[in-house]
């Protein structure tokens, strides 16, 4: 009755964030057909509004193989997506505010020794010498010289554009309203506009991936979170490093124009299912911590605050891997506030899973099975 278009392809992807878009790109490079449906604009959600930290340091060791793989992709960003996205290996410095924090950073260095992160511990006089702008609460820290930062507003849409140039069919402003499997293929419907049939489906819907998983009998405890972000007016350039704090709470970096971008936990407020903004208390908490970390900020102005909607799982690890119920379905969601750096590698892993049924990077820690412990022993029908 309507002019609904039907497309048949090898792989259908829901979600044009950095994960879905980089999966599309990787699949195209393998010569595999891709249709990607994005409800809004590619890279307009978490992937386009995040803080822009591109760091491996501080990640759980289980994520480091993925993070290392992503590190190589970031290193070739321009060749991969056609823009540098303001990506800089400017160094990521994790600050210790006590001797206990310092000890914890040292332990992390030992744990991650196999991964060649090149962590350098800095404290006391050397700390003051290298960063005179740091507030007095910092007693030291750990520098990962090859970690850095990028502009998510530019990088994430660019992954989608690159995938499109490589032949992926990308439909923006096409919300997937229905997913089903008819015994042969997945069928995705977007209103009366489009129907996609494909033997493989990637669930890359970010914070909204839960209902798709549930559709296939895999309900997981995915929750939305909204980290608070703020940016100052441009200030004279003084800081190369992207800063984090051991134990969390605040992070900040200075962009080439001089603006400082700050972020922190604390709860943003959801405006609706899709959008969020920084909460008043979160802004307050950011302001206190920012001045403590960088006293020079005292007289600077916030010109803008914002937030985003990100999917969190209780153990703060993503779900990345095959469905436990439905062959051909692969999940890549729930990056729990840290998917920007590993997103491009997660995309490649998803593409490998489609092609080979396995990934060359260990992803066992991210299996959806972990949410169904009592059922894992039952044998398949």
């Amino acid at each position, binding site marked *: 009755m309507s002019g609904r278009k039907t497309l048949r392809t090898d792989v259908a992807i829901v979600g044009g964030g950095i994960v879905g878009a980089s999966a599309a790109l990787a699949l195209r490079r393998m010569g595999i057909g891709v249709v990607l449906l994005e409800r809004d604009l590619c890279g307009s959600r978490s992937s386009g509004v995040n803080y822009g930290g591109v760091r491996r340091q501080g990640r759980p060791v289980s994520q480091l193989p993925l993070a290392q793989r992503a590190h190589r992709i970031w290193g070739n960003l321009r060749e991969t997506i056609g823009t540098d996205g303001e990506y800089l290996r400017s160094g990521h410095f994790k600050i210790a505010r006590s001797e206990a924090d310092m000890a914890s950073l040292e332990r992390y260095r030992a744990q991650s020794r196999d991964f060649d992160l090149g962590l350098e511990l800095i404290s006391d006089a050397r700390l003051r010498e290298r960063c005179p702008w740091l507030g007095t609460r910092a007693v030291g820290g750990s520098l990962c010289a090859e970690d850095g930062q990028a502009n998510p507003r530019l990088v994430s849409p660019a992954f989608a554009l690159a995938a499109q140039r490589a032949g992926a069919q990308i439909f923006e402003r096409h919300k997937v309203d229905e997913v089903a499997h008819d015994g042969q293929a997945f069928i995705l419907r977007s209103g009366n506009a489009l129907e996609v049939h494909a033997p493989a489906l990637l669930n890359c819907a970010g914070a909204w991936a839960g209902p798709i998983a549930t559709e296939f009998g895999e309900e997981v405890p995915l929750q939305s979170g909204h980290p608070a972000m703020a940016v100052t007016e441009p200030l004279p350039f003084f800081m190369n490093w992207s800063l984090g704090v051991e134990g969390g709470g605040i992070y900040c970096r200075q962009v080439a124009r001089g603006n400082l971008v700050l972020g922190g936990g*604390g709860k943003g407020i959801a405006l609706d299912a899709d959008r969020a903004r920084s909460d008043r208390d979160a802004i307050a*908490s950011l302001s206190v911590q920012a001045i403590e970390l960088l006293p020079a900020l005292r*007289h600077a102005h916030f010109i803008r605050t914002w937030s985003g909607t990100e999917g969190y799982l209780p153990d703060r690890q993503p779900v990345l891997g095959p469905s436990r119920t439905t062959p051909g379905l692969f999940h890549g969601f729930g990056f729990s506030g840290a998917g920007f750096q590993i997103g491009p590698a997660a995309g490649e892993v998803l593409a490998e899973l489609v092609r080979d049924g396995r990934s060359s990077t260990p992803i066992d820690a991210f299996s959806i099975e972990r949410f169904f412990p009592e059922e894992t022993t039952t044998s398949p029908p």
Partner: protein
Amino acid sequence: MTAPSSFSALQPVVVGAGPAGVRAAQALVAHGLRPVVIDEASRAGGQIYRRPPSSLAERSANVLYGFEARRADAVHTAFDALRERIDYRADSLVWNAQGGRLDVLHGPTRSTSSVPYGQLIVATGATDRVLPVPGWTLPGVYTLGGAQVALKFQGCAIGQRVVFMGTGPLLYLVAYQYAKAGAKVAAVLDTSRLADQLAATPAMLRQPAVFAKGVYYVAWLRAHGVALHGGVRPLRVLGDATENRVAGVAWHDGQEERTLACDAVGFGYALRSETQLADLLGCRFEFAPLHRAHLPVRDAAGRSSVRGVYLAGDGAGIMGADAAEWAGERAALALLADGGAAIDAARAAMLERKLHKLGAFRQGLERAFPVPHDWAAHAPDELVVCRCENITAGTLRQTVAENGADEMNRLKALSRVGMGRCQGRMCGVAAAEILAHATGQPVQQVGRLRGQAPIKPIPIHLANTAPSTEGAGA
């Protein structure tokens, strides 16, 4: 009269002490309430009836407001009479709204506080609508509003020999005020044509008194030898290389390029509503063709789409000062009625009728002084559209061509337009016109920049309104 009990919990708050806010507060007080009135300016009056700081020797209302002197006096007197019966916060910027509370930055004491409200009337007014022209960033170029503020507020002119350029009723008014104040007005350059004005006359005769004033300003200027040119296309502001300031203007008169020497320029294309607060409050917006802008929707009484939030005055659509007074009072009556107070229904209906009637006049005005719809087509690539971020028209077009941006927020994300201190308040209109033109869409299609706190930049150490022990982050 006493307020019904449903008001006892929290006072209503009025943001903005222009004509709309003052009349709203007055109606609330008349019904026994004690509203909080918050205004960024140091004295009440709003844009049009802006009062000079009391430190400057008082000039008479006649000198300051001309034909509007009586109305200005009336609004000021009404406000002064309210002072004891309202909780008035001057010099106070509302920079954020969330969860039934407004965050307010008090300038003189450099402190912020959080003001709860039961009901809220948003009467935040307007600022100039800016469509830039090459050279507009030179020292000596002002918006029309800025030029008028300099005169009214500081008692000084922007230059000795001034050109006024753009369109809208304010163009002639400000030129007139400058000429009366003794400045030399070198010319008034109007992008709209005499034919537009003639065609709009019947509609504008719906408000004969206002129309007559407009006619009077034009006639006065002409009689005093001020050159008035219609149907022009501004080309650029000419700079003086040695002093790096305005030396003249160049425009196209339909046949040829013309230039004129001057030392200051006032320009603007009527006004645009200040809508960020309504946006932060979650009000629903729609495109309003008459205003060529996305505006918060309201019913005839001023109720927004959000319960307890009312909209009045230019902040919800440019209707002028008289309408602002009526709309302010009407919104207050709606607030009162919604809270269960007995109001004068006949008065409310009369206000609505007056506002409705003015609608036809506004259509006439838009017809007489249309925004030059071909502005974007003529804006050269090197024209700086966003001065905070130094973004040119060419960069915007390139972003469209290379990245397929077809919507304002995406254009902002990719190009940085509207990302600076003004958050798009100044450059947003022009950027939307460029985007619409570059993508071949009507301007309503390109959407609007989403509002984000703070409404204006705030010092970081003052952002700490409500210290929180919560931390722990991503």
